[in-house]
């Protein structure tokens, strides 16, 4: 090799290591809102979710980011029971014949905080670490994550190894219910105000408030990623993720219809899910520049030991319209297979399964999203964005397993809603 080329390589190393030292304060504030309505014209939940994110960027590979999210959710949500040809009584509300039962008193607010920071170890390696905390009236979560990133070949290839842990506590309104007991039975287990702690908290006359009351769920995650610069226009990224969840994973508000041989409900019982779940994902991303635009193609395959398999395709095109405006039309398709303990309903008099849930989110389902982001770069320091997308969830309206009365009703009303986000971002 000539001296010219050897010097060129040395310059590569020098310039790779010392890219842009610009320090900036960056912010992004957005508000998401949507109101769901299903194909039976029943209003479901409405969500308003503001987010603020502030980043202190010291260099390309050196930043600290803080994010705060407030999430307000209200409205009605499917409780798991099927539509039936009779009026259905769920203790505190009635459902007219033919309609999918929705629990109308679904209200919650959530605060979430995330702190992330990326710091270099040396010129070719760095770490990403984060802390997270979120709080709802019936759910608390705290977590930490750490990833190590190592560059090779003048930053052409980067490997990522990461892990995360989170500690969540579920403390439902109205307490826990014994699985498969009737919703008409008097509560057997009173709502625990505090988790039994080794220090014996909660035994005194005054109820001492634990930070994590209720039943516990722990999540252990690992990730391996490789990103590669294919050429001057194209970037490839592959990740494999593994997640092990251990603890209380039953939805404390979901029930299952118990039907007779005519397909009519005779009772409703509380659901039960396994205490462990092993999830795996493989994801590939292809990002390429087309002129001044860019095309993002993503594919994810997800599978878990609950028997769910999901194929997710995501396409985004970043289209510039002059120097001021840009559009990001996008399309996403996600198709999942049902969990092996998913049941449309239970048959009266038959032996109970070990686990069962009628949650539509564990059923065979397709979610499609079509939308676009619109951005206006007002100046070098301020950009306004609006994102509008239609999200549509469809499933099996008349599954073969339905019997009698169930066949006459829609077992999976389609759900379509528009999600809107408005955002402001820029730098100080």
């Amino acid at each position, binding site marked *: 090799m000539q001296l010219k080329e050897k010097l060129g390589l040395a310059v590569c190393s020098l310039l790779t290591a010392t890219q842009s030292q610009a320090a900036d304060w960056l912010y992004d504030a957005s508000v998401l809102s949507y109101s769901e309505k299903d194909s039976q014209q029943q209003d479901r939940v409405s969500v308003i979710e503001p987010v603020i994110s502030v980043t202190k960027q010291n260099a390309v590979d050196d930043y600290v980011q803080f994010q705060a999210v407030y999430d307000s959710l209200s409205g009605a949500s499917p409780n798991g029971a099927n539509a039936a040809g009779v009026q259905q009584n769920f203790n505190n509300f009635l459902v007219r014949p033919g309609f999918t039962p929705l629990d109308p008193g679904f209200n919650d607010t959530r605060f979430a905080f995330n702190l992330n920071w990326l710091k270099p170890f040396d010129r070719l390696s760095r770490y990403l670490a984060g802390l997270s905390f979120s709080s709802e009236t019936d759910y608390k979560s705290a977590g930490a994550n750490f990833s190590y990133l190592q560059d090779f070949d003048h930053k052409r290839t980067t490997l990522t190894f990461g892990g995360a842990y989170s500690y969540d506590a579920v403390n439902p309104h109205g307490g826990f219910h014994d699985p498969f007991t009737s919703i008409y039975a008097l509560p057997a287990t009173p709502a625990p105000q505090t988790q039994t702690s080794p220090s014996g908290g909660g035994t005194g006359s005054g109820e001492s408030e634990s930070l994590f009351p209720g039943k516990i769920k722990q999540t252990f995650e690992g990730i391996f990623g490789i990103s590669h610069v294919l050429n001057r226009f194209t970037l490839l990224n592959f990740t494999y993720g593994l997640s092990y969840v251990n603890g209380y994973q039953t939805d404390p508000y979901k029930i299952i219809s118990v039907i007779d041989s005519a397909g009519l409900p005779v009772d409703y019982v509380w659901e039960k899910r396994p205490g462990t779940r092993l*999830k795996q994902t493989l994801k590939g991303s292809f990002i390429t520049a087309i002129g001044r635009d860019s095309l993002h193609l993503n594919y994810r395959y997800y599978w878990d030991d609950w028997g769910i398999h999901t194929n997710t395709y995501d*396409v985004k095109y970043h289209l510039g319209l002059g120097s001021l405006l840009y559009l990001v039309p996008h399309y996403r398709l996600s198709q999942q297979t049902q969990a092996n303990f998913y049941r449309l309903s239970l048959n009266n008099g038959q032996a109970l399964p070990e686990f069962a849930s009628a949650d539509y989110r564990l059923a065979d389902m397709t979610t499609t999203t079509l939308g676009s982001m619109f951005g206006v770069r007002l100046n070098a320091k301020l950009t306004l964005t609006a994102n509008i997308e239609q999200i549509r969830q469809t499933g099996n309206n008349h599954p073969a397993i339905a019997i009698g009365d169930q066949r006459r009703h829609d077992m999976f009303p389609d759900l379509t809603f528009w999600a809107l986000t408005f*955002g402001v971002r820029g730098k100080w």
Partner: protein
Amino acid sequence: MKLFLIQGIALVLVMALSGCSHLQPQAVKPWQRGILARQNMAISPNPVQQGLDDHIYFSKEAASGGSGVGGGGCGCN
């Protein structure tokens, strides 16, 4: 609805067949990274919007994950 996917794949094929260099491996020097450094070439160019979307999908689908580790729990699913 699969039409879009087919269009996407077709676009990649057209790029490959038209002799476009977008799919051919080629070493990239630091001073040739201008295009890759553009905001619209980031893995997630709009991270806050991506986070909001991921949260919708987390609360309405069985699958989640694939983009990283951590990020906080939610009782919504």
